[in-house]
């Protein structure tokens, strides 16, 4: 198998991942889980690098002296004191909570726990894998994610406080 990456294939595959089409709720869950996972992973990388700068960056590998630590800390704080980062954190809160609850739902589904069982069924009946319990967990993840976003906005920026 060749190791060459074909960009046209990658673009086509990206479209398949991002456009759920008319295939229903589970396809939306697939797309959203994927997008939220990638965005949260990028945030996680940025978070590790950013918290590293609080103690002085890559060059520091032992506890520095007080003056250096204070200066590094103040620089990092002044860099982060930016409403764009706060708004970004609210989006991250939304995506993290969605990915978490939806991830629990997917683990349960992968172990066959929240799905129905195989049975005799008519053709137009709802499939057993689209059970109400499983879909309720999806909507729970959506609503908790929106709640988390509003809570984060309130905690960081005081939006809903007089």
């Amino acid at each position, binding site marked *: 198998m060749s190791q060459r990456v074909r960009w046209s294939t990658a673009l086509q595959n990206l479209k398949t991942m991002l456009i759920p089409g008319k*295939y229903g709720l589970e396809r939306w869950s697939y797309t959203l889980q994927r997008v939220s996972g990638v965005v949260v992973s990028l945030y996680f990388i940025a978070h590790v690098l950013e918290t590293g700068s609080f103690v002085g960056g890559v060059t520091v590998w032992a506890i520095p002296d007080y003056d250096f630590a204070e200066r590094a800390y103040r620089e990092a704080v002044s860099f982060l004191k930016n409403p764009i980062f706060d708004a970004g954190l609210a989006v991250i809160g939304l995506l993290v909570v969605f990915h978490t609850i939806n991830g629990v739902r997917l683990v349960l589904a992968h172990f066959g726990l929240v799905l129905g069982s195989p049975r005799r069924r008519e053709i137009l009946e709802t499939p057993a894998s689209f059970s109400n319990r499983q879909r309720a967990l999806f909507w729970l993840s959506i609503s908790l994610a929106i709640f988390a976003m509003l809570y984060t906005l309130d905690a960081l920026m005081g939006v809903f406080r007089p």
Partner: protein
Amino acid sequence: MEAVRFRVHRFRPEDGHRGSFREYQVPKKKGMTVLDGLIYIKENLDPTLSVRYSCRMAICGSCGMRVNGMEVLACNTQIVELEKKVITVEPMKNYPLIKDIVVDMSEFFVKQKNLKTWLIRKDVVEQENPTRQYAQTEEELEKILQFTYCIQCGLCYSACPVVSNLPQFLGPQALMKLYRYLADNRDEGEDRLAAVDKFEGVWRCHFAGSCSTVCPKGVDPALAIQLLRRAALK
């Protein structure tokens, strides 16, 4: 008489890589299916159109195609229930195109065959010339009955986003069929789970559910794959 517009995907392999759409006016009749419309086009308007069909009653699974962006059996889809003035007919995705809306499904069948989706007994002589009945109880039958209704139309394989992205993925139909024999209490096949425990196997199903959405026979491959995954995780 009221007419309906068919936008049909046309492709000739000798013309190059990309197909195009051609439009036809088809008079609407009561109880007319999309397949009836395509047959009308072939008989009266354009004899060069290629369509694959056989039974016209959703039993053979030959006329799978994408109508208005959804995978359906053309013989099982009434024009009235689409409620659209224009009907777009495209070939199924994830298959090599042969002509117009006819696709090459050999890879789909090979993947299923490689998983040995048939009843395997240790005693082959007894299996060929059975001396008694091998009856199942109602509960044992219900575990597999739903999955035996698969007609191998290939619609789930076309709808699956993972097959589209990772062509080596076994696909919903093959995995569902494997679970049908795994759950069968008469089957004695060994290493059924080892065959799907690889990168392109059962683990690449992300429960997007598109296969169960499009299945015209109510088979629910998504459920079968999750149950297969549960068996493989144990």
